[in-house]
């Protein structure tokens, strides 16, 4: 866990890398320096189009490009891609199931100092309710790179969620394979399953160590695909460990935790506690300060795990 790289950085580099292998265009809405599509712009200036500060137009333009058979990426902050442009994503891209790959960066409260208006804790919810939309949330730079290639090869719209902050690298670039719809067991365990997505996966692994010291054996599942969700793996671990904790940098309403509960309520109802932003808006502050304020910490995951184990036993 020595290296720390932001998933947006990995996204930008992946566009350049795969730009040599695949024919796609990239759109941005005046945030290329921040979303890191600037790398692609520099390498392939004739394949990059700035749409200006007009995200709704950008999404519908992307749909038009895709309707001609040309794959295209559209990038902005999560707030504007999945928030402001929700209706364009739904109607222009989702309804006709077009090959638009949305690269949304600066998701969650790790936007930090910019504060609530730019901290999107709702995008997993708004994107996963669109029929046919694939929703990806990579845990580290290696998974982010692989997610980009998986999205290119996937037939249909994909929403990719990337973060601003540098986060630990968990996977090995040479061996990692991204399979859309598949969760990854990071560590096995018997007493509780910690299901995490995005930057929370690294924290779930830390929480596991805390719990181990107390004699609680926690499994950790990384869920890089929020939709279609890996119901099989979740059900298997619900049966095996009897209780779950979910962890995401997103509102606890409507996001990955909700998606896990939806699955387990139907297949194997077990106590499931959710770590996430507790239905609040964000605020300005340094990234780690904000994670503390909103309870997105290994300590809070471990605490919820203790509660979940207690609930299972009662």
């Amino acid at each position, binding site marked *: 866990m020595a290296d720390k790289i932001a998933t947006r950085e990995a996204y930008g580099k992946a566009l350049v890398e795969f730009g040599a292998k695949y024919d796609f265009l990239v759109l941005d809405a005046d945030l290329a320096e921040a979303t890191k599509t600037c790398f692609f712009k520099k390498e392939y200036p004739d394949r990059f189009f700035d749409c200006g500060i007009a995200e709704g*137009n950008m999404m*519908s*333009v992307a749909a*038009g490009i895709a*309707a001609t058979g040309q794959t295209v990426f559209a990038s902005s902050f999560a707030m504007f891609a999945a928030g402001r442009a929700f209706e364009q994503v739904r109607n222009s891209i989702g*309804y006709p199931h077009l090959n638009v790959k949305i690269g949304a960066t600066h998701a969650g409260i790790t936007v930090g100092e910019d504060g609530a208006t730019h901290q999107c804790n709702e995008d997993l919810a708004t994107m996963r309710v669109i029929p046919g939309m694939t929703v990806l949330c990579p845990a580290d730079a290696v998974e982010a790179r692989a997610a980009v290639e998986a999205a290119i090869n996937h037939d249909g719209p994909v929403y990719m969620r990337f973060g601003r902050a540098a986060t630990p690298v968990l996977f090995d670039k040479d061996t990692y394979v991204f399979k859309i719809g598949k969760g990854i067991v990071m560590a096995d365990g018997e007493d509780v399953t910690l299901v995490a997505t995005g930057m929370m996966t690294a924290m779930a692994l830390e929480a596991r160590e805390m719990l181990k010291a107390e004699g609680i054996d926690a499994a950790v599942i990384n869920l890089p695909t929020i939709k279609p969700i890996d119901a099989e793996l979740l059900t298997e671990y619900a049966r095996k460990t009897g209780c779950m904790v979910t962890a995401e940098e997103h509102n606890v309403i409507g996001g990955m935790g909700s998606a896990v509960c939806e699955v387990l309520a139907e297949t194997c109802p077990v106590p499931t506690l959710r770590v996430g932003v507790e239905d609040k808006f964000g605020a300005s502050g340094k990234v780690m300060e904000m994670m503390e304020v909103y309870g997105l910490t290994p300590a809070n995951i471990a605490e919820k795990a203790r509660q979940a184990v207690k609930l299972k036993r009662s």
Partner: protein
Amino acid sequence: MEQSRKNELRRIATTIRIGIIEEVYHAASGHPGGSLSMADIMTYLYFEKLNVDPHDPAMADRDRFVLSKGHTSPVLYATLAEKGFFPKEDLVTFRHKGSYLQGHPDMKGIPGVDMSSGSLGLGISSACGMALSAKYNKKDYRVYTVLGDGESEEGQVWEAAMFAAHYKLDNLCAVLDFNGLQIDGPIADVIGPAPFDEKFRAFGWNVIEIDAHDFDQIEAAFTAAEQCKGKPTLILAHSTKGKGVSYMENNCAWHGAAPKTEQYEIAIAELKAQLASI
């Protein structure tokens, strides 16, 4: 334009108007007013201008058409049926359960529909995307879109207008159906989106004003649009909402209402009389 050709186009346009009335009557819903206003322009596009093949709707380098004001799907469907993309008998299934003729255009289910549309302001942006893709891929097909005057109250129309001019999309031609009426009343009373000519010129577009029901002017406008290089063209088409059905003309009550049986019979009789008189 030769008189014989003009008469043939008039016959087609009137047949399309009959199709529009059949659709909305049998659906007991839909939008006849803004469909009837565009029947002549749609006739010209599909029977004179567009490089499309009803037997190969997905033909690679075909011209593209996006009905940005997607609620006027009846005119698009009646035109596509007349052109042979699907059976004319299917028009009466418009808006019915199980029919592919959805209330608003659906590119996945309807032969000849290049873009799903209906949420206002989105279609012109998608048309921009198609035109940009044509430029990038060095294809010479053209992209056409039809906008509503009320639709241009959507901010996205102007985002798209800025985009099209910036990227010099001279392979894009937008027609603005300037009939002056929207659901809540005259556009001037609702929010006043005009003047369109000055606005689009200020956004960097080539603007051509025409009478939307005069085939000579329609032809001249589309020819001029094709010849204009370096900027997109807006054809500001002054039209009559409800054109061809006396009681629907210039009456915003017919924006989104279907005729009752007696009204339907009057409309069909009027249109058939027009057809016979050409």
